[in-house]
């Protein structure tokens, strides 16, 4: 059995292909899932006449059998042609690429908040297990898990935007620094929800690790607390956090949709919501497809990362 990293990645990518095809089939079927005549759905708000409907049928090959329609669509997807929006007839690919940077930036900023606060707080709570500090952190974690990003967002908007006036209320700012400034409240709102999850996992695995013999031995040898934490315990304790990275990223994605709507930011998430509200099917299909590919690749990435962090996990055991 070959257990080298490149062959493992290659194998995982091969397994991902049928999964992606299945997802693309589901995405394509969305047109037929929408109530009413697909031609009318795809026509959108444009003038409806027998001629335009016939043109739409021709354009999307709606008179062909479902499988043929799907294959034609899939061929276009492979050459990076996701069709045009039914609203402004703009290219879906252009729309997505325009909105993508903001969402990526927001996601990174949000994960910085979630991990930067969640991991230290989880460690702190584990060290002070059972104390008032622990209880406080746990409560904060529960509130984090319970507070959807839009609720946190509204509170932040009111307190820091309206009441104290420290942060701008709307817009995404111009220039890099101003943009960071504008996206700080959204990033905190986004990170807060995910932070709850990170606290929970870090705390639980730290408590478990700290009870192990090697920690007692290290203490007996007179190593400093800091040394024990950073060089030994943390390495082991963070493995569950990496495992949960999938959940964390999915949480960030969902949160990003809510946060972008709350703060009126023109990202991919708010584009998804507008197109869902307007039933702009080509745009919805494009976004969902991009997200699906991203998530599938991310899961492979996490598994690779996982094996790199913990050499005990053999590639052969991490089956798809």
């Amino acid at each position, binding site marked *: 059995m070959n257990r080298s990293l490149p062959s493992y990645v290659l194998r995982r990518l091969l397994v991902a292909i049928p*999964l992606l095809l299945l997802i693309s089939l589901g995405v394509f079927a969305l047109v037929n899932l929408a109530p009413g005549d697909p031609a009318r759905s795809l026509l959108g708000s444009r003038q409806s006449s027998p001629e335009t409907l016939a043109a739409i049928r021709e354009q999307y090959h709606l008179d062909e059998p479902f499988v043929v329609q799907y294959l034609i669509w899939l061929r276009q997807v492979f050459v990076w042609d996701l069709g045009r929006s039914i609203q402004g007839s703009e290219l879906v690919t252009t729309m997505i690429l325009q909105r993508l940077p903001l969402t990526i930036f927001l996601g990174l900023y949000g994960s910085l908040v979630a991990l930067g606060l969640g991991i230290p707080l989880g460690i702190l709570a584990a060290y002070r297990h059972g104390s008032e500090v622990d209880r406080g952190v746990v409560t904060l974690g529960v509130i984090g898990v319970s507070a*959807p990003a839009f609720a946190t967002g509204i509170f932040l908007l009111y307190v820091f935007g309206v009441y104290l006036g420290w942060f701008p209320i709307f817009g995404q700012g111009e220039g890099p620094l101003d943009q960071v400034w504008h996206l700080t409240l959204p990033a905190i709102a986004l990170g807060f929800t995910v932070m709850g999850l990170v606290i929970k996992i870090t705390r639980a695995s730290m408590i478990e690790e700290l009870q192990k013999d090697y920690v007692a031995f290290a203490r007996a040898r007179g190593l400093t607390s800091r040394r024990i934490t950073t060089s030994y315990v943390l390495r082991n304790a963070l493995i569950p956090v990496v495992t949960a990275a999938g959940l964390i990223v*999915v949480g960030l994605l969902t949160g990003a949709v809510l946060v972008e709507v709350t703060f009126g930011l023109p990202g991919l998430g708010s584009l998804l919501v507008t197109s869902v509200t307007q039933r702009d099917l080509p745009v919805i299909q494009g976004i969902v497809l991009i997200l699906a590919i991203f998530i599938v690749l991310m899961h492979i990435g996490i598994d690779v990362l996982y094996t790199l962090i913990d050499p005990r996990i053999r590639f052969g055991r991490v089956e798809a």
Partner: protein
Amino acid sequence: MKLEETVPSASIPSSIGEAALVRPRRTPVTVWIAMAFVAMAIVCAAFGRQIAPYPPNEQDLLLGDSPPSAEHWAGTDLLGRDVLSRTIVGARTALVGPAVVAAGAFAIATILGLWGGYVGGATDSLVMRWVDFMFALPGPLIAIVIVGVVGGGFWTAVAVLVVLFTAPDTRIVRSAVLEQRPLPYIEAARTLGIPRRRIMFRHIFPNILPLIAAYVVLDFAFALVSLAALSFLGLGVPPGTPDWGRMLFENRTILLTNPMAALLPAAAIVVTAACINIIGDWTYERMSAR
């Protein structure tokens, strides 16, 4: 994909007798507060219209949006509707939907999990493939897309969430069943020739029920937040319904004139979900206590 680790790997009590022998610790104050608050929310859900000072949909267009006053403790929204009354009445949709989601998902998951864990076979591997597939998907985003494209509002949203929640729940039930399977009492029951269905539902099920109960509570909280998110995006409940998520969506534009119109329902969502999570975590800890 390596997914097993993401499910909290708590030790399931090997038998209920063993868990009960450990004297439960005193119930923490936070749990009492959480229970009191949830009880209050349930009362609001049941008798909201009687408790609320104003009918939730009574408009006062001349008044419009106004800050908190003696007549309207939490002020009014753009149509002059009383925010406090709408929040109280909103408890109903906030609690009924998640209750259906949590109960429905676990009813299906219990059957699939019992079958998969005890009988196994082709059905089991098929179900677990499906569970793995669902696990890789961002549930809430799928709910947004499907509810938005298919339409149908609140109950479509509930149905989609039931399907999405069933997958992880099945995994939980199945792994609990797998722990029970090799135990002597099951072997004894099998030796006695008790039919499979009877062993599954009369012998295994009661033993995994406490664990299921804890997860139902946690599911409930997650469903509440998810449904609120959908109505915040304008999906789910129809316009005009007194619903917490919907109120946030409608009133976030009047944050400057009457902040309470958005902050009160936001607080209602967070506090209710937090209280239910506290109760769920506590139940879970008690059930998995060594």
